[in-house]
């Protein structure tokens, strides 16, 4: 009889443990599910918000509050362990907290090639280490930023060691080229800002090249297809080819040909 009673207790303990494990397991699984759902909701909302900037033909600045930490890499936005593929060109630090400051700028050389998103967070600061060739250019570039971004920047010819401050070397401005953190880039305000804001600029630069190739190909096709009496579009082709090689010196020539077409009442290329 005593053995029977002991068997009952063993049964109660085992059954209790199984029931407890079942409920605990369910609670954890449900928590994971809700967290995953929240991450996906946030990622989707963030990407959609950024994408909707594209409808604006102008430079646009906005502040987005973040409920959690967001990681931005070259092709992905990541929240917790959930990542979301994005085609947007996001120039930003890898990790962003609390508040996102987003500055949207259409990238034009001279026609629109891509949409640039310069992103930073409320705590981040930037110190630009300039030399005599870049000082005036950088002061002018910073002065043209929205006020909320402008006060994040400082510049001098010395490094600054402060927490949350990113030091960026900007040197050797000559022949339309400038050196940003040892990378030689064409002297264009959008590109220079992109290099300053991005922690992944090498990868982003490849994406810009890709976008540039796609758009230039479209304009090459248009220049080949379009024909009208007294309007010459073939003269665009060598300059467009230069653009594909990221030789931006041809911008002024492309602009001049396009303007001439408009003056002659011909359909413009862009």
């Amino acid at each position, binding site marked *: *009889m005593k053995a*029977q*009673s002991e068997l*009952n207790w063993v*049964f*109660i303990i085992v*059954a209790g443990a199984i*029931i407890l494990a*079942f*409920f605990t397991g*369910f609670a954890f*699984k*449900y928590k994971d*599910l809700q967290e995953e*759902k929240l991450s*996906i*909701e946030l990622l*989707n909302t963030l990407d*959609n918000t950024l*994408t*909707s900037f*594209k*409808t604006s*033909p102008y430079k646009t600045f906005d502040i987005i509050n973040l409920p959690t930490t967001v990681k931005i890499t070259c092709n992905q936005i990541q929240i917790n362990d959930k990542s979301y593929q994005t*085609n947007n060109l996001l120039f930003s630090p890898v990790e962003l907290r609390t508040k996102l400051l987003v500055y949207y700028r259409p990238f*034009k050389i*001279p*026609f*629109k*090639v*891509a949409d640039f998103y310069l992103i930073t967070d409320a705590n981040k600061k930037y110190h630009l280490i300039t030399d005599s060739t870049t000082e005036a250019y950088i002061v002018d570039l910073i002065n043209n930023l929205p006020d909320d971004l402008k006060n994040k920047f400082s510049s001098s010819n010395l490094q600054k060691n402060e927490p949350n401050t990113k030091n960026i070397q900007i040197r050797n401005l000559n022949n339309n080229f400038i050196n940003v953190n040892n990378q030689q880039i064409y002297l264009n305000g959008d590109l220079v800002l992109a290099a300053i804001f991005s922690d992944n600029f090498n990868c982003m630069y490849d994406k810009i090249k890709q976008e540039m190739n*796609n*758009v230039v*190909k*479209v304009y090459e*096709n*248009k220049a080949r*297809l*379009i024909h*009208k009496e007294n309007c010459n579009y073939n003269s665009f082709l060598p300059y467009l080819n230069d653009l594909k090689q990221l030789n931006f010196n041809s911008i002024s020539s492309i602009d001049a040909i*396009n*303007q001439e077409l*408009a003056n002659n009442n011909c*359909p*413009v290329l*862009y």
Partner: protein
Amino acid sequence: MKKAELQMQESILAIFIVTIIIGLALFTFYQLQLRSINNYKLELEQNRDLILISTLVNKPELSYSYLGSEENALDTIKLLDNNLVNLGFKEITIKQVYPNQNNIQCTKQNYPDCNSYLIYNKKPSKVTNTQIISLPISLYFPYTQEYHAGIIELKSYS
């Protein structure tokens, strides 16, 4: 003693049955949650498609600009040969609706005597569901320098 033992066994059985009922309820609740997540996923995809179709007009590969400033219209010459990629399993068509034109798909050879442009087409091997969204747009014809009315239609396959 025997009666007490019987009562104990009855209690264990009752707890066991109640636990199974609660377990089934939780399982049903979990399944409903999964279903609502699938519905949410569908809603997100629809939103994404809507955003895609509304921003396509601003894509430099398709949009018309005059001396660099965006004109909120699609350049029909660009539609003949564009480089749209990485949009997933979709079909995007643009049709001229006014003035009425012959119902012919545009190519480099028959342009501008045609009325529809297939600008992106990628179908999965097996289509289970197709969502269709359309928006009115403005089409620009560089030769005549005229704007015509059109619609852009996006078919999303899953």
